[in-house]
């Protein structure tokens, strides 16, 4: 295995499974994954099923942990992780995880658990090689996001519902959309822009009683009148919101922000300005074509410098399970492991999602827990040759010091623990 092959597997992919065939042309292998529909398309329950579960739970009030919503969430998390372990398109899957984190929806608030799996399947997965504007629109219309960031409760104060109930705007979704999903604060928008955008999004809600339940624009809760965001006027009505999202998606500040975030993920914690500039240009020139941006990421020389990124717990657990190629009954409880390592699944503390820099993950206790996790995982395999696994997984990235320590370990268990705890396995 040469350096570019292992780099394609660990930087762009999810880590090598020793059983899988090596690509003959690593870059071409990555680009081929961007073609055609996602192989995991259609996975899991649909949004309407999730909302029906939520509806039933609100009616029946089952004890905590026994709700239909929890079951859908749990099954969805297991399926998402299982797919990451076996997918033939790991680069594509990494992009799915990246954009899912970019548009964070967390089970911590908003009763969104039941629709989290379908959020990934319907709002993220179909668009990772499409237009960013389409992904943004799908996200903002998805019940998971509308629940998570409170937009279902946001009412135009001058709408019929607002006049009747004396309730008003909830800016949460509008603010996070501008701050975290599109423009970023660096673009210099003002509070008035946030308020106007929140007014634009009033009425973007869900109808839980409909059959099937789903997104619904509620004209009766929509703030009447034209709104101005960053100097651009948008008419009242649902179409005004769609136009505002298209405007935000294609704003130069959005392209700059997305480019920096992508380069941070695929190149290094300190994104080289030239690389950011390159991706930003592709997004600008293609009107936010994420497939073209992904192709350009593969084309960045800087993205082929090895071991610059510390694996997040999610990256580490997936890569470890892939390296040992464990069958599902041998993996233990990887979802639980993610919690123990500080990255519980679909459970980010805040809407800005999980951080993507080493400094955020290399806390002392967190690093020792990685070792404990490695020790537990290493004890589950019945593989006979740890060095063979290490070589098949990391090839030229495997350091002599690690090989030496592995060779001198007192047992296979210790040898594999050393491998999984080595500096190079902690990186991608």
């Amino acid at each position: 295995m040469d350096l570019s092959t292992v780099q394609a597997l660990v930087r762009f992919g999810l880590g090598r499974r020793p059983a899988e065939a090596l690509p003959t042309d690593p870059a071409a292998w990555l680009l081929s994954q961007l073609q055609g529909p996602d192989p995991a398309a259609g996975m899991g329950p649909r949004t309407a099923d999730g909302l029906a579960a939520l509806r039933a739970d609100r009616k029946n009030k089952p004890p905590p942990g026994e709700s239909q919503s929890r079951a859908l969430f749990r099954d969805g998390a297991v399926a998402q992780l299982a797919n990451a372990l076996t997918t033939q398109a790991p680069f594509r899957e990494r992009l799915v995880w990246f954009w899912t984190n970019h548009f964070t929806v967390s089970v911590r608030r908003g009763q969104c658990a039941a629709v989290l799996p379908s959020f990934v399947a319907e709002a993220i997965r179909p668009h990772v090689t499409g237009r960013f504007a389409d992904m943004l629109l799908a996200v903002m219309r998805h019940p998971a996001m509308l629940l998570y960031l409170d937009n279902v409760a946001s009412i135009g104060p001058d709408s019929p519902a607002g006049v009747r109930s004396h309730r008003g705007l909830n800016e949460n979704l509008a603010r996070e959309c501008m701050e975290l999903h599109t423009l970023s604060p660096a673009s210099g928008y003002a509070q008035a822009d946030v308020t106007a955008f929140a007014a634009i999004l009033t009425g973007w809600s869900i109808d839980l009683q409909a059959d099937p339940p789903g997104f619904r624009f509620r004209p009766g809760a929509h703030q009447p009148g034209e709104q101005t965001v960053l100097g651009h006027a948008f008419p009242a009505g649902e179409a005004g919101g769609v136009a505002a999202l298209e405007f935000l998606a294609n704003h130069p500040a959005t392209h700059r922000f997305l480019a920096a975030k992508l380069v941070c993920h695929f190149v290094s914690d300190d994104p080289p300005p030239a690389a950011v500039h390159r991706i930003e240009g592709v997004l600008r020139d293609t009107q936010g074509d994420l497939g073209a941006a992904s192709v350009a990421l593969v084309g960045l020389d800087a993205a082929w410098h090895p071991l610059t990124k510390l694996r997040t717990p999610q990256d580490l657990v997936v890569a470890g399970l892939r390296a040992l190629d464990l069958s599902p009954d041998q993996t233990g409880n990887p979802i639980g492991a993610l919690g123990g390592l500080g990255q519980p699944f679909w459970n980010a503390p805040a809407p800005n999602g999980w951080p993507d820099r080493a400094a955020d993950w290399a806390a002392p206790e967190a690093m020792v827990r990685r070792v404990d996790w490695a020790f537990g995982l290493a004890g589950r395999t019945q593989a006979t040759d740890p060095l063979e696994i290490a070589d098949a997984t990391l090839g030229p990235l495997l350091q002599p010091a690690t090989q030496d320590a592995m060779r001198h370990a007192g047992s296979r268990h210790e040898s594999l623990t050393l491998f999984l705890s080595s500096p190079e396995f902690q990186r991608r």
Partner: protein
Amino acid sequence: MVHLTRRSALLGLTAAFGLGRASLAFADAQTDQRFVVVILRGALDGLAAVVPYGDPGLATLRPGTQGPTPDGLLDLGGFYGLHPALANFHMMYAAGEMLPVHAVAGPYRIRSHFEAQDCLESGADHRMTSGWLNRVVAALPADTSRPEGEALAIGVSVPLLLRGPAEVANWAPHGFAMPQADLYARIAALNAHDTVTGPALAEGLRGRGFSEAVMQGVTPETNRYAFPALAAAAGRMLAAADGPRIAALELGGWDTHTAQAARLTGPLHQLDDGLAALKAGLGESWTRTAVLVMTEFGRTARINGTGGTDHGTATVAFVLGGAIGGGRVVADWPGLGAGKLFEDRDLAPTTDLRSVAKGLIAQQFGLTESVLTQVFPGSSGAAPMRGLLRA
């Protein structure tokens, strides 16, 4: 594989572990004997655990070794002395419940940990797909009074020793997976030059209370997941009348290439406390229990350039239990003088470890010669050692 859900639930209630009385109905069943194997992974230095201080050759190989003293070696009858960390072993020895077998080795002459452990667990001179203890289980008559099976592996996975056709249960306490201090230390060293993971790991281990002394093996660690806790749990499970009667445990930390004197103390304390905990957990069943403590090979007779020892050949095995006819050391002692060492570096093997194992299981379970040969294929040259158990 069977998961011991019911039993693990019971284990959570240490004070209320209440199978005892209800189980008395089964207590006199013919399947009452207990057998436990403890694998010491990493190669225990037999010459440090059971020191032949009476051999005049020892002074040359290991200068400064002293005979028994009040705070030194614990005497085992005038020629051998037990490492001072093995105080419980010594009490069991005095009670006739502990018997070291010295200068033992398996039928292989391999100095690779992994391959040697495969052979040790296979019970052969090559790796097999099943372990000898599983074949023991398979040879026993089916016993429907044990709903979770005859045998139990303590740990997150089943070691090769217990893998095979016979069904084996597996148990580990929740959150069990914790390396020993020595492995943490090696991982910290491997990361020491990394500007991100190095300082974080060092600080994290300090935060966990691993002082430099603990990391170097100078001070024994205290770890609630450590071996004594597992051994105590194993004892309680084995004590239940409908529980398993065969169990395997393992303990690492024996690969003492450097600073052996300091590094050995911690693992030996764990082993010593572990056997005491196993005995306590077994309660009255201890009287019908035999334990075999074995390791894959010994270490060099000479101390190397870094105060440690390298991979060798013969070592010591321990048999313990209330069923043991102990209080003596069994060895065909090869001597340590000039020309006595195997390949001029290791304690020479004079007893086949399979003879010890065969002697134990033959007497404990009444296994016939033909069954013993199935358990240890190709071992006809290694006759079962007689008289390990009380008559």
